[in-house]
């Protein structure tokens, strides 16, 4: 009796699966382990990692193609992310340091430079690149799915709670893990009197001719404001930029979200007094009023004023809300001279009327699609425009919901590159590694290295790694010390260090850990002034530009340590810290300035001699010491020693480093053995005693 029904059911299921998605019944649901919301750069980046690890995932996109944000924005169609094709190097990892648009993949040629050869590419090339990315990697993207509502599933399954997404047709998608990469779409608006008279960046005409001989007031001093200003510079009569904070230049703050030099022509015309200008002031207390019909009536009477009156008719004046309130009653639509600041202050900067007022205040995260059960809170920083997330980008209070891409910028707002493609492509990878451990028990990928190789490996990372370089101060390499070897983990989110073991699946040993971070100096200096760069390695800690810093901890910093870390530091005070001197060419390979100080720091942390020795020296040490140096133990004593040739032997002898005399027998009495190590040596030998 049962079997025919079962058979029928199986048939039905098979039938249903054969049909394309549209044929699904209205209420049917689809389940995926991972739902990625939005096929922008962050969503696709995550798609790549999920597809690479062969997970059950789907990318849901409301538009018909990937990266649709870039079909509209930036309005003036020039990307300001660098697409540097020629770096003089062929190291792919290194070149990603200077390619700010491409996404990560295993294909060496899947880069934006295939689509555009421009340093600042045309905005259209980015969606084109993303389409190529989707196609070549075969990512599963479902277009035309506009998710309007997201709620947490009520039923607590043993695998976690999961999320239910409803699209515009009422179709439900259930997901075990939701990855929100919706980007920032909602224009940021400020409410003030007359804010309806303001045009938005999203809808302004981009043809400069439309601004011919017009006076334009732009609210905002970010890249979009300057980009708008720059495009109309040759047509508009007067451009004023108005916002609360003064302009921040990216080349001064090292934050790519600040005003980039690509867009800053207006600074020139302002400082050379050519009718444009920047003004600081609050946005909440201003008002925009239109000079309207009453002006017309009066102009009839006063003929002399007629011409000027006509000129000013229908124009927009910036005034202060308090001046409007003081006018009679609520009738603020009627503008009198007393309503304008110039009446009270005859040299008020913005006293002249404007033809247009444009709002360029940036964008905010769309919280509205989230049901209360699934809505991450607003971030503390970034004026609450972004969702608040943990250090591993999981929404606060929304387990299994992760925020990726620009929307996840609240972690490093105004300090690093997490809000930009060249930054979040790495944080997405970090999140994926967290997912792999949490849901599939695959611990963070690591490389086991012999301690004697650690220095070379660190230098290798420092010289090529793009992740810590782009996400400076946010992602760092973790080196777990394990005695004679170590585990090397790349690009771990530093703020999550207190939760290291539960996020990475690696345990800390009693030997502690090292963290490799790239960071800018904390001392604000004149970016172009004298003394901006440090070149003496002994003063490496004063480096101002991006330089590698190593932190050594004997145990994991706690949550509390993290909270109370010194201002501006990416990490709490370590047991030992080492700054590698900044380098003009970002090549950290000098034997004296880079390698040796690094080696000494490692020796200090590891309490061991890390120098390299020729076979002869190792032979000698082996016969005269209970424990020859590490290099000899791991090399020479395994038949892998270094034999010098005649020339190098000569050099070493001239340097007086080779033991040639009759007397020196042990490292303790060897004059070539640095003093600072004798203590370390002592502790090594005492450690031996204890071990035994």
């Amino acid at each position, binding site marked *: 009796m049962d079997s025919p029904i079962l058979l029928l059911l199986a048939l039905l299921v098979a039938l249903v699966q054969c049909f394309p998605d549209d044929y699904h019944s209205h209420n049917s649901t689809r389940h995926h382990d991972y739902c990625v919301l939005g096929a922008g750069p962050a969503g696709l980046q995550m798609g790549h990692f999920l597809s690479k690890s062969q997970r059950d995932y789907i990318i849901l996109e409301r538009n018909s193609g990937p990266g649709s944000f870039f079909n509209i924005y930036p309005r003036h169609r020039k990307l300001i992310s660098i697409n540097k094709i020629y770096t003089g190097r062929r190291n792919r990892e290194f070149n990603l340091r200077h390619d700010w648009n491409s996404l990560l993949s295993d294909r060496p040629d899947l880069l934006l430079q295939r689509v555009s050869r421009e340093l600042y590419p045309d905005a259209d090339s980015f969606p084109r690149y993303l389409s190529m990315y989707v196609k070549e990697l075969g990512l599963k993207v479902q277009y035309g799915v506009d998710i309007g509502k997201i709620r947490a599933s009520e039923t607590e399954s043993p695998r976690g709670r999961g999320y239910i997404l409803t699209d515009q047709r009422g179709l439900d998608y259930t997901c075990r893990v939701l990855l929100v990469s919706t980007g920032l779409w909602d224009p940021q608006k400020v409410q003030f009197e007359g804010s309806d008279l303001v045009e938005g960046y999203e809808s302004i005409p981009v043809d400069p001719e439309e601004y011919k001989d017009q006076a334009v007031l732009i609210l905002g001093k970010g890249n979009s404001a300057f980009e708008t200003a720059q495009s109309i510079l040759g047509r508009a009569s007067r451009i004023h930029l108005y916002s609360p904070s003064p302009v921040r230049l990216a080349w001064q703050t090292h934050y790519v979200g600040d005003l980039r030099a690509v867009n800053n022509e207006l600074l020139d015309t302002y400082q050379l007094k050519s009718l444009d200008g920047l003004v600081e002031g609050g946005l909440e207390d201003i008002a925009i009023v239109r000079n309207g019909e009453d002006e017309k009536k009066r102009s009839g009477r006063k003929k002399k004023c007629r011409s000027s009156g006509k000129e000013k008719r229908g124009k927009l004046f910036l005034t202060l809300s308090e001046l409007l309130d003081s006018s009679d009653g609520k009738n603020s639509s009627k503008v009198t001279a007393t309503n304008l600041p110039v009446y009270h202050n005859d040299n008020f900067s913005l006293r002249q009327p404007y033809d247009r007022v444009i709002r360029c205040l940036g964008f905010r995260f769309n919280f509205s699609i989230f049901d209360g059960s699934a809505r991450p809170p607003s971030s503390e920083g970034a004026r609450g425009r972004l969702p608040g997330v943990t250090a591993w980008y999981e929404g606060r209070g929304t387990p299994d919901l992760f925020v990726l891409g620009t929307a996840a910028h609240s972690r490093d707002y105004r300090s690093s590159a997490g809000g930009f493609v060249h930054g979040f492509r790495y944080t997405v990878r970090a999140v994926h590694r967290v997912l792999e451990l949490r849901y599939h028990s695959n611990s963070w990928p690591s490389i086991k290295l*012999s301690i004697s190789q650690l220095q070379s490996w660190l230098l290798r990372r420092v010289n090529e790694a793009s992740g810590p370089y782009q996400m400076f101060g946010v992602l760092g390499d973790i080196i777990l010390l394990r005695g004679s070897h170590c585990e090397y983990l790349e690009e771990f989110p530093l703020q999550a260090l207190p939760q290291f073991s539960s996020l990475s699946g690696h345990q800390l040993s009693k030997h502690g850990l090292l963290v490799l971070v790239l960071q800018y100096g904390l001392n604000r200096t004149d970016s172009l002034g004298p003394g901006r760069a440090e070149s003496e390695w002994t003063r490496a800690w004063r480096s101002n530009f991006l330089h590698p810093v190593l932190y050594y901890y004997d145990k994991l910093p706690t949550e509390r340590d993290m909270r109370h870390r010194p201002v501006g530091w990416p990490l709490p005070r370590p047991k030992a810290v080492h700054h590698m001197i900044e380098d003009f060419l970002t090549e950290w390979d000098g034997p004296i300035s880079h390698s040796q100080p690094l080696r000494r720091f490692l020796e200090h942390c590891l309490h061991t001699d890390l120098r390299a020795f020729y076979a002869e020296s190792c032979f000698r040490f082996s016969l*005269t010491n209970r424990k020859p140096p590490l290099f000899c133990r791991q090399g020479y004593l395994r038949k892998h020693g270094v034999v010098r040739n005649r020339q190098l032997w000569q050099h070493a002898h001239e340097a007086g480093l080779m033991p040639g005399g009759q007397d020196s027998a042990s490292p303790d009495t060897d004059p070539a053995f640095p003093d600072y190590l004798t203590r370390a040596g002592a502790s090594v030998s005492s450690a031996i005693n*204890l071990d035994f």
Partner: protein
Amino acid sequence: MAWFICVVILLLCSKSELCTTGNASKLIEHTAAHFFEKMQSGKMYFIYFGKQVNPTIGLFIEQLEKSADVLEDYGISVAKVNCTNEHIAKYCTGEKLMKKVYLFRGGNVLKSFDTDTVFDVNAIVSHVLFTVLFDEVRYVHTIAELQSVERAAKGKADIVLGHVQVLGLPEHRALMETAFVYGVKYQFVLTTGGPVLTNMGVEDISSLTAGLWFLHCKGASQSQHSDSCPHTALRRALTTLHIYTFLQLMEAPLVSEASVEPSEVNMVHSHLQVPLLFLFSQPHTVALDRVTAQTLAWRLRGQVGLVLIHRESPDVKIPLEYNAAYRLPGEGSEVKYLILNNLEEVIDLFRDESTPEEEEDDDNWATLDVLDDEVAESVYRDRGQSLDMDAVTELTADTFHSAVAESDYTVVLFYVKWDAVSMAFMQSYIEVSESLEDADVSDVELAVLDCGEWTDVCSAQKIRSFPTVRLYRPQEPSQPYQGMLGTESLNRFIMLSRLVSPVLLSSPDEVTSFLEGDMYQRHAAIAPVTVLGLFSSTADAGVPVFKEAAKALRGETMVGLFADRQAEIWAVEYSVTLPAILVSRGPTGQTEAHSLNLSMPDQLVTHIQRALLDTFATVIDGGHSAHLMKVHMDQIQTLKTEIESLKAHQQKEKHYLRAEIQATADALVQSQAALMESRAVNDTVEEGEERDGVTIHARHTCELWNSTSDRQTQHTLPFKCLGSLKNVLVFERKAIFLCPFKMASN
């Protein structure tokens, strides 16, 4: 007469045990009559009335005696009255007797002190002087009190403000002694903490136990009522000498001017052991320089003397590039010239110690600039020479795969240019390439790949250490080179790798040839030891395993395989059972035989590697250095079981065990013997620990040792071997090496 006094003292001592330490004591013992007489004299007396003496009082009396010496200088006599003998009304009676000391002036009691308060010399002196100077030294607590003192003193006298946390300590005494001497000249003020200190710029009041400030009130105008006088703090410990010096400095002019060489300048500062700072002035900047000097002098007042030197004077011959100089106190100390750019630098110069230590610091840094790694240093010294890379192929990501597929043998050196070992080995590598070219070896390609540039290739090849050398053959997994990083070893590896492994032998003749005949001779230079696997038939399950092992040993030695019924002949000859291996050391050496019963290739490889070891495990490697090799595990085994039985037997803590072994070893050598390779012992006990570099320094005979020293290295070895005992090498100096196992030759 003298002996009589001695007797008296002796009697006194024996009777009352009031034994004074010396005859020089100024402590007077009064009789009653004496006492009343003195009271009338108007002098000051500090008198203790005592009865019997207990240890506490004894200690006090001792201190009292010491203080008598000091107080005499201040015109105060110290005395004691023995109430057992004398009776003085009021003082020799009452409950407080024994516990009180009185200060008299002109017959009146000025103040009485508890013996607990005036517990030692410092306390006595400070308290007595404080009482005496009661009118002259003002005690203040609040800021208002200090301000009133300041107001009174303005234009008249400078103020010395002293702070002591507790009265009666040496600091208090020093302060009081100074006040006694300078009380007329300065207004002394004492405080014991509180808000006054905050006014002086002290941040942490509780941590400051004592301090002294000089308030320049004399020069301050009286009109500025509200302002407090400018002050200078004494930055040293409160001792009489320091205070004296400080007050002298305060008297010295703020800035002196001179027109002579700095070395000629003679100021009060040199006597006071204070450094002098010279600033050089030019005629047209004199006014400005004076201001600078004044500012500096104010900040450094009390620490450094400041002299402005007029450069235009013909006596002054200072190099023009310097604008400042300093001279440390002390006879003949040199004038040091420097260039100072701002005031802070100068202040820093004298901040902690008055002696700047800049030069020393520079020296330290300078030594740190020297590479102390012999490999790095030798490569660094070679930086002028560019490597001739023509002999090797420089691979790229584009050429790597085609290159390793094309050539029969491609040896690739993976390197990074910041790794000194890589760059040192690179030279040998190029030499090997050249020598192969010379030898017309055409099927081997030597290539290098820079992992700093072609990071993808290195990641894909899983290169984890630098330098890495690998041998690639088409359609076969790459083989790592694990030998010495030197010309000869690498050369031998390459030559050996070109041989087929294992060599399949088909007849007994071939076997003989392989072991010691033609076939052996052909390769004797690169493979002095050969290994032959003997199996009864090709169907033997061990054959594939052996073949696998032979592959892994490729490059290390020459391996032959003879799988035939006739193998039995050799088995019988060497009295082993098949399968077995024969290790041949040529026609002159002996041939060893080992039975095989291993199923895994890895095990077999290790087994063969062990068998390969010479009886004298020392191998002369690269023609230059003696090489120490891993030793036969069997031999360690003996030691291991010994230790384990010891461990089980003793049931002691780990480190006790160590001591035990040490003791055993010591007993064995019976002299200052070093237990060789404690690490090896360590490893056999500690199973959990990773075994890195487990090595036993192998079986040296004296002959071998000394030959190593003479022939193979350009320097001599540290110890000359004199002879060998059973398992001990005896050296000329210092060390005796214990070989923890039997010498193989015995």
